[in-house]
């Protein structure tokens, strides 16, 4: 991994670009890709999740998930305040869209939180530079 890329073995080049956008939400694709390609393994009676990256990649993923959860929590908080205080007679039709967004952000934060827990029992599939487990 370099500062600009993260190892990800299923990708065409074996790595992905580390920062695709300026906001935490832009990490949805990377978090999704890592989450859906992780493999479960039973090790000494415990479940361990193997990610197709190296240790630095797992650390980057953890940082991105932390930022993602924080960003979504801020957004949910701000939207909830607006929902409480906004004049419904003026923006009644917009509130419907806002509520769907709240649902989407809440579901995303749930998935990210589950990933964060899973990462505590994570190990990289790439253990040494260039070698896969």
């Amino acid at each position, binding site marked *: 991994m370099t500062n600009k890329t993260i190892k990800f073995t299923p990708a*065409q080049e074996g790595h992905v670009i580390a920062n695709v956008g300026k906001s935490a939400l832009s990490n949805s694709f990377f978090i999704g*890709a890592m989450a*859906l390609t*992780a493999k479960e393994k039973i090790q000494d009676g415990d479940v361990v999740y193997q990610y197709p990256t190296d240790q630095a990649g797992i650390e980057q993923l953890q940082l991105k998930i932390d930022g993602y959860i924080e960003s979504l929590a*801020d957004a949910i908080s701000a939207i909830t*305040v607006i929902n409480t205080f906004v004049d419904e007679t003026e923006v009644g039709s*917009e509130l419907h869209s806002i509520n*769907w967004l709240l649902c989407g952000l809440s*579901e*995303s934060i749930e998935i990210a939180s589950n990933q964060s827990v899973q990462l505590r029992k994570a190990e990289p599939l790439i253990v040494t530079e260039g070698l896969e487990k």
Partner: protein
Amino acid sequence: MNNSKTTQEIEKTSKGYIKFNHAEEGKINLCSGRSGFNSLFAMGALELTTKLSKSGEEVHYAYETDKQGLDELIGKSGEVLTNIQEAMTAISIIMTDQENENIKQNTPELAWLLLGLNELSATTSDNLERMNRTMNSCKHI
């Protein structure tokens, strides 16, 4: 009777799932939530594992799913894109009321959210266009 039950169980189990070669069980669930936002994670997984190849001037994308999976993901992505764009419109309208102190105080968080949604919308839109093009050509799936 037993055969019928088995068929129903299989249908129930596979409903909402699409093929994804890199997943633990070879499939991923597109219908685990109500908002459709989870399809963004699935789209990310497919996007970042897609193999690109060129033949002459033409560029082909080999997705790690089948035609049905791509079709379902296109449908879901279209839905979530509509939801995102409607939400962006709604937030922008609400943010114009800067006389409301509660909105004013939350403007930085809302602006960051707008930026995030805008980036998500752009990426989703690009991917959707690419998936549609691949579906139309029906090659390398």
